[in-house]
């Protein structure tokens, strides 16, 4: 009920026109109000024709989220494997401290990071650019990847690595030929979390970009002008949620296969 109702409300709102939204609550199409496709049409029209610009931010969002997630997973997995398999020691700093250092990045409220990030990107000339955004998102997403993957690698038995070594792999081969294929479920979970956090972030996208590179959440909020176009706002909200729903279904399918267990015993 609580999950589906807002979606249904948004769905029905996206088919309403001005009067059916502002004139009190209406529920059933064709009975309570006459459905109109205006809210959806606006999304596809170019601004010059009176539409809203949502297509470009959409692809910007996809590009930024995917590349940031990919880089985070790539670096995060390597870091996590090292943290799970080798012992590091520098004075009082041990493996668990390093892992905590990664996670601690997420403890800070984003607002604390926003000003330093703004200044840093400004100095590097990367404000309002894809590269700058990807860099910031990697900082935000990699801790999630490290955290999930350390936990996952800790559950992959060490004997698997050892057997691979005995079978003639060098440590790198043991990692990508044996341990990594065994960790695909973990990679998928980590990837999904990165995608979700990256996709839904509004704060940094809002602060670090202006006009050149607009991400979807920012673009959606920007629809809100002197008149709030509830219908197109609802339609674009649904469109922005769609990829996450697809991702969630794929992941759920995959996880329920039970691929997580069975290497030992």
């Amino acid at each position, binding site marked *: 009920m609580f999950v589906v109702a807002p979606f249904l409300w948004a769905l029905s709102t996206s088919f309403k026109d001005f009067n059916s939204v502002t004139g009190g609550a209406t529920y059933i199409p064709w009975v309570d109000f006459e459905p109109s496709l205006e809210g959806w049409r606006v999304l596809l029209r170019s601004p010059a024709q009176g539409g809203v610009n949502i297509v470009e931010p959409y692809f910007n969002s996809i590009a930024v989220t995917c590349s940031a997630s990919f880089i985070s997973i790539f670096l995060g997995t390597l870091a996590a494997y090292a943290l799970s398999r080798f012992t590091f020691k520098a004075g009082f700093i041990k493996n668990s401290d390093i892992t905590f250092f990664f996670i601690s990045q997420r403890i800070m409220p984003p607002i604390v990071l926003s000003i330093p990030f703004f200044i840093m990107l400004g100095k590097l000339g990367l404000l309002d650019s894809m590269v700058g955004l990807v860099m910031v998102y990697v900082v935000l997403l990699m801790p999630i990847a490290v955290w999930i993957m350390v936990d996952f690698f800790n559950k992959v038995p060490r004997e698997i690595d050892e057997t691979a070594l005995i079978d*003639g792999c060098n440590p790198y*081969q043991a990692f990508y030929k044996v341990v990594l294929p065994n960790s695909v479920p973990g990679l998928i979970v980590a990837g999904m979390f990165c995608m979700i956090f990256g996709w839904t972030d509004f704060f940094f996208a809002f602060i670090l970009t202006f006009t050149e590179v607009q991400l979807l959440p920012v673009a959606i909020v920007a629809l809100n002008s002197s008149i709030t176009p509830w219908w197109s706002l609802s339609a674009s909200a649904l469109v922005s949620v769609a990829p996450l729903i697809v991702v969630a279904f794929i992941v759920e399918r995959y996880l329920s296969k039970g*691929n997580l267990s069975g290497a030992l*015993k």
Partner: protein
Amino acid sequence: MAKIELKNVAHSYSPDVENPEYALKKCNLSWKDGGRYAVLGPSGCGKTTMLNIMSGLVTPSEGTIKFDGVDITNMSTAERNIAQVFQFPVIYNTMTVAQNLGFPLLCRNYPKEVITKKVDQVAQTLGLENLLNLRATKLTADQKQLISLGRGLVREDVAAILMDEPLTVIDPDLKFRLRRRLKEINELYKSTLIYVTHDQNEAMTFAENILVMDHGKIVQVGTPLELFERPKTTFVGYFIGSPAMNMLKAEIKGKNVVSIGDTSFKTGTDLSKVKSKNIKLGIRSEFVELHDKNADNCISVKIDKVDDFGNFQLVSARHGMSPIKAKVSRDLAVPAGDAWMKFPDNRCCVYSNEVLV
């Protein structure tokens, strides 16, 4: 195939602290090429550490290891060309049975045809030929363990196959057959087999030579018969044989005579050089004879209990406070209450400070 030598090898998992605790105390050993060995000892006595040192998963904190005279102490596991089977089957989940078996060859860049041929061969030996195209996750525990083993056998040139309690997860009937197959494989491929176990029956039936370890120290190396008849320490006597060896507190009374209380025993050992006061007389329950009259080398006992095991009777008796057990033929009528037990002199082992004289 190689002769493996350990020279002054010792290992501690925390070598930096003062007075480090050694998981494996300093030892010198050599394993004959093509031999079939068992390493026997209670849990935590350093068996696995020893195996891991040989396979290269652990670098010993002291000493050197040589394969055929070549120092390989700092060589990587892959370069050592060794096979190791762990207690629990390790399989590569994402691969099929055939891929699992062929993986060691793939890692060493063998051509495809050779891999297929070898994999077929090994699958045949292990009875896995019908499962080759199955995903490895689909198999039962003992089939998985066969795969782990198969990965060791697929390379014929391995220096040795090390097995760390490989049959723990396998049920008794299959265990027996597998053990026999391991023996056959050893004879067929002439590969050195080193088999770690804490089960003495497994060690006794499998190995030509057994190495008994305790607290990181190698206590005795010998054939099953030697371990049984002349255990080098009281620990080996207790650990091997079922029931454990009878151990009785004794005193030295002459050149080859000891006494337990008032009873004197002739032994086959020259005791003239023994100074210690901590003397024990050990005898296997298999060698203890039951008599109804006193005679030479006999001790009076009180019989507590007789257990019929079908093929023999186990007599539990006491002399004073010390228990003595005897295995006797099931046809023998065991007297109730008081009786005499004879310790044949050539079967008596005398221990001074827990070490065989």
